[in-house]
């Protein structure tokens, strides 16, 4: 059976997602047992012209948000050539942190092509808004995270290549994923289109911290004193987005005492992560009088930048409604 062909590309981002593919370490040099990597500019230096010559790609891993006209063109070209398109990481999946720039009307002194200057070195046009890959082309799978964890990357490789592999590897990968994905992988077929290679519930479901159903009177910020014990951060008054974020990381951030900021995007059951957070937090206020509630509400700062830290372009329902008119 011919090996599958893989392409890897990053648009606006930090390369961590591409490097996450390398972080499978010992498996790196064995990748060619199951796949031929035919296009990877960062690691192989594949020229863009190569893409025109490639007839079809089995699986494309696309990382990074879309910020320039060139990146949009690349996304469209790779989509057209690829049987399976995977959004790798939070930037491709949801817009990521670069998407926070959408909150700023003036984006600063970004240079743009200057026709009066040296025309041999024109820059690609910068788009007015940062977009996630999922807003630019149809995406078949998403591997969330900033960056995706090693186990999820390996799971996704096994899953989308549909090649199985060593039983131990397969069991390791499938054990981290919901049943329907694990079953597909065990059968050597690709999981259903639209699958997100992560859990189905919220981070809270796998967070190791203890929830005591306590309520708080004032908001704490991470630089202030809070208990270093294993108690739920939200119940300590810290804004933690775990309740509005898809699980799969195993509570990586909360496990080290740092509040979740939502790099896995929202779970399926949540419509809007910001709205979910507002509901979740307000239900834990220990205040009943309007003045007291107002006082607590006033302590929250930068809600958009916090609740949509990694997802503003794609998961903020309010912005999407405005855009659609």
């Amino acid at each position: 059976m011919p090996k599958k062909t893989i392409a890897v590309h990053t648009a606006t981002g930090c390369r961590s997602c591409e490097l996450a593919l390398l972080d499978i370490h010992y498996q790196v040099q064995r990748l060619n047992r199951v796949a031929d990597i035919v296009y990877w500019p960062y690691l192989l230096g594949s020229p863009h012209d190569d893409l025109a010559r490639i007839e079809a790609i089995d699986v494309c891993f696309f990382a990074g948000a879309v910020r320039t006209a060139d990146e949009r063109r690349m996304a469209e070209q790779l989509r057209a050539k690829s049987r399976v398109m995977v959004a790798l990481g939070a930037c491709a999946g949801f817009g990521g942190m670069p998407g926070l720039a959408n909150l700023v009307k003036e984006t600063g002194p970004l240079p743009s092509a200057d026709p009066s200057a040296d025309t041999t070195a024109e820059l690609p046009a910068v788009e007015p808004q940062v977009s996630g890959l999922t807003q630019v082309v149809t995406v078949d799978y998403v591997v969330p995270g900033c960056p995706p964890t090693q186990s999820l990357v390996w799971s996704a490789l096994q899953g989308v290549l549909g090649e199985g592999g060593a039983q131990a590897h397969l069991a390791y990968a499938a054990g981290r994923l919901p049943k329907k994905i694990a079953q597909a992988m065990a059968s050597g077929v690709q999981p259903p289109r639209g699958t997100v290679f992560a859990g189905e519930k919220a981070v809270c479901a796998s967070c190791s911290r203890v929830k005591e159903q306590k309520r708080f009177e004032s908001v704490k910020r991470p630089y202030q004193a809070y208990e270093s014990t294993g108690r739920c951060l939200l119940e300590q008054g810290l804004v933690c987005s775990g309740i509005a974020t898809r699980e799969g990381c195993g509570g990586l951030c909360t496990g080290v005492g740092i509040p979740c900021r939502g790099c896995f995007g929202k779970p399926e059951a949540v419509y809007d992560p910001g709205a979910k957070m507002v509901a979740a937090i307000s239900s834990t206020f220990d205040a009943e009088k309007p003045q007291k509630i107002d006082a607590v509400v006033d302590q929250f700062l930068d809600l958009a930048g916090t609740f949509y830290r990694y997802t503003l372009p794609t998961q903020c329902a309010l912005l999407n409604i405005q855009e659609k008119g």
Partner: protein
Amino acid sequence: MQTVTIDPLRWQAAPSRVILAANGSKPAARLQVTAPRDVAGMARGRPVEELPRILAILGAAHHLVGAQALDQLFGVEPPPPAVNMRRALLETLFFSEHLQKIYFLLTAWEHPFRELRQAGRGAAVSPVPGALPDEIMHALALAQEGAAILGGRSAHPLTAIAGGVSRYLKEDAYLRLADIAEQCLPAARRAADALRTALLSAGRPLAAWREIAVPLAHAALAPPSGDVTGGAVVVRNAGGETRAQFAVEEIGSKISVHREPWTHQPFAYLQADGWPGLSSGQPQGLFFVGPLARLNDGQPLRTPAAEEERQRMVAEIGPFPHYSVAAAFWALLIEALQAAERMADLYQKQNLIGPSIRSVPAQMGSLGTAALESPEGLIFHEYRVDRDGIVTELKVLDTATANNALRCLVAQRIAESGIVRHPTRQETKSRMEIGLLPF
């Protein structure tokens, strides 16, 4: 005017290409970054305590310098175990980021996805010992595990916060760290021996890169050879003499940023000299940072294996300062050894425990600044905040900006060096990629 675009370049943090233009007898090379990063757009308006996490998008060391800037903003001093934990993480980043560049270098000759069995068959055309990429990948995996233990995650660490770190390590982590440190030093030694013999020594492939050099002023924290954090920035001219010295807090006013319309990557220069433009002479005002800039002070290193390697380098290519691509690769090896030696020390349990790991801030200032020697060189953060601690202004010096002028000049130098030999487009591309990799 005939132009050739070399696009894309491998191993670049930002998407980059080189445009070569034949203008008479002298080719002109333009190194262009084609996408903006705009960290200011991401960071302005955020609560300041979020910045170490947000700015880690520029590299893991930015998380640490961000936490240092918060220490200053909030007027707190982290307790010794927290300082050691941060330093242990930083040394781990030195080790892993330098080794990663070395791994990339090896893939210049060896396809990264070729199996070892096949690599063995192709060994005749590759100067790289067959098992070396796998060994380096193994050491990288270990170092990343160490970074994840210390920083919560290896790629975008989390645990450095205002006044210290967010948590103590678990008991089993100390044992694992000791195990990792024990394996990293021999791995670094083996990599250094193999690379020196196979690539760097006279007559080997990288020896030719001794000719590709851009003598330029260089900046590092003082004392660069001893500590990675310091109180002053020292700028030395290409001859090695001290040209300027200023406090970390002054970096924002002493170093300015220039923008050109043909690249998204700004250029750092010394404010006092003004922007001199890019020319292949020794323009006043331009400087570079990084491993070579640190070693160019010529001082002995404090760890034995790294100092031994530094002496080997001096014996082979002469005393510091150096400016060549070959020297820059050698500097990576020396610093990887140094990092492995320091990891062995800092990973000791007694350095990471104590009665407290965090000093809780009692007040908030309006300005926080900090600088750090990251694996790729000097980096700097400056935050201004309003009374709620919301970021109103920030200045960030990253190594892509600090070294942009040098990298452009290296690209130009490589283009010029190709005139006589008329290399193919693929050869030119490969030369550009190798030449830019260590900076």
